[in-house]
């Protein structure tokens, strides 16, 4: 019983982090129509960068983390400015291919700079485990969930009420009309990439603070965020926050129970099985925007 409770709580917490990373994908997709295939590698790269700042350079947390965030902002700006903007008005497939290139670039870069395969961040949160009912949970899970939820809430408010957020959603509908209103779309694109990188960095740090900083599993975290996006609908914030916990639960419950009964890798496959089933029923994802067509 307490095993179940533990799986549920950790699954929900992980799921919320996935949702946060997924939001970075949604923002880019919504404003520019580009599918960012480098999501997992951005998580990977910024986690290792955090390792470099906190463990290798030995900076205190309150200096190191803001530095990582600032670096993520610059990274997002640079990605948009130097790899994507030159391709504006080219077929969207070329832009998506560029993000695929970025994915390999960052993976290679991490391999060159940090050759070891596993490392760990210094503890960011208090270490004593928390007792919830009969379950014993590592405190990091709860912190990760709370931080993700707060950020998620703030971003939702930003997109609903702030004029830049509204303009970003407008760009998703009609880029030309946005320009006709005198708003630079390039600024909107570069902001969306800055969002994506910061969210990937925060998500990466949270996930790595729970376990280790690793190579393939961190990329998989990005893949999980993909599943969240597809399940929730590519362009839906609400979809991300609901699909996140579903994927998280599928991972922990599936990993916890099914691995014993079936075979080792089942944990990674379950989210995708869920996605396939959902796509049969709802091709736009659970909460994907329907195209409004007036005939």
């Amino acid at each position, binding site marked *: 019983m307490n095993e179940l409770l533990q799986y549920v709580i950790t699954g929900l917490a992980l799921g919320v982090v996935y949702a946060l990373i997924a939001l970075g994908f949604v923002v880019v997709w919504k404003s520019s129509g580009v599918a960012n295939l480098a999501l997992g590698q951005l998580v990977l790269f910024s986690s290792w960068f955090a390792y470099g700042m906190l463990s290798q350079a030995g900076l205190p947390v309150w200096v190191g983390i803001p530095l990582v965030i600032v670096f993520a902002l610059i990274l997002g700006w640079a990605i948009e400015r130097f790899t994507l903007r030159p391709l504006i008005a080219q077929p969207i497939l070329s832009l998506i291919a560029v993000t695929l290139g970025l994915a390999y670039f960052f993976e290679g870069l991490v391999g060159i700079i940090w050759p070891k395969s596993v490392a760990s961040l210094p503890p960011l949160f208090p270490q004593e485990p928390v007792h919830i009912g009969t379950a014993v949970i590592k405190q990091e899970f709860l912190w990760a969930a709370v931080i993700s939820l707060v950020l998620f809430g703030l971003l939702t408010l930003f997109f609903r009420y702030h004029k830049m957020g*509204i303009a970003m959603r407008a760009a998703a509908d*009609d880029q*030309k*009309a946005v320009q*006709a*209103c005198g708003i630079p779309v390039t600024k909107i694109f570069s902001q969306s990439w800055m969002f994506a990188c910061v969210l990937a960095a925060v998500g990466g740090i949270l996930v790595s603070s729970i376990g280790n900083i690793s190579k393939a599993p961190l990329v998989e975290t990005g893949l999980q965020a993909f599943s969240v996006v597809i399940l929730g609908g590519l362009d839906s914030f609400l979809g991300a926050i609901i699909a996140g916990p579903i994927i998280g639960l599928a991972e922990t419950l599936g990993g916890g129970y099914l691995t014993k009964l079936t075979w080792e890798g089942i944990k990674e496959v379950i989210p995708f099985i869920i996605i396939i089933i959902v796509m049969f029923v709802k091709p736009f994802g659970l909460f994907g925007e329907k195209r*409004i067509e*007036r005939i």
Partner: protein
Amino acid sequence: MLKLNNIEVTYLNVIRVLHGVSLTVEDGAIIALLGANGAGKSTTLKAISGLLHVEEGEVTDGSIEWNGARIDDKNAEQIGKLGIIQALEGRHVFEHLTTEENLMVGAHNRKDRNTVKSDMEMVYDYFPRLKELRRNTAGYLSGGEQQMLVIGRAMMATPKLMMLDEPSLGLAPLLVEEIYDIIKRFNTEQKTSVLLVEQNVRIALNIAHYGYVMENGRVVLDGTADFLKNNEDVKEFYMGLSTVGTKKSYREVKHYKRRKRWL
């Protein structure tokens, strides 16, 4: 004051669509730009608003001046900030945003929050219908409501020059009249110049002070609205009236007999 001096526009470096267009928009005036499909009216607007660059078009000759300074090398954002706002042809609303959010996007470049609020009230005052619909998703508004929203969004930028591309497109005659009354009211009350592209010559000349007729990328005729309304060619070819001013009977049409005087 906006001044176009003999501008030429070329798309993709080869297709020349404007061959020397000159026109002037005085402050506070309503200017109508008339002509059939493909005459170059929309291209002229895009050349002014800077949207041409997005479509691989370029002003290859001549100059566009706004209050004496050249603006033909500026991009859409810079021109928007100067107070020249274009409402695109064909109801480009942001479909998934609400009416109010659409208007907010129009006011994006304004710094002061309070004036944005009061401007929104102003737009609702011109278009009471939009106020009722302000929480509705714009994509589900009717065609007329969407057209109102597009014009309202342009108003939100409090432009000095508002350029409207065929606001009558696909709307019922009564609705067209309503929208034109509002444009006229906006022009007199806010002192905003309006450059109006229209195929519906009669209604455009009703509110315009001055008009230009374009054909094949050239201005072929210009004059005050009254002059154009009484011009035989305009009457015959753009209003469907015979020279006497009565409705044309197609039984008596003899095309070869009458040629446009500017040809």
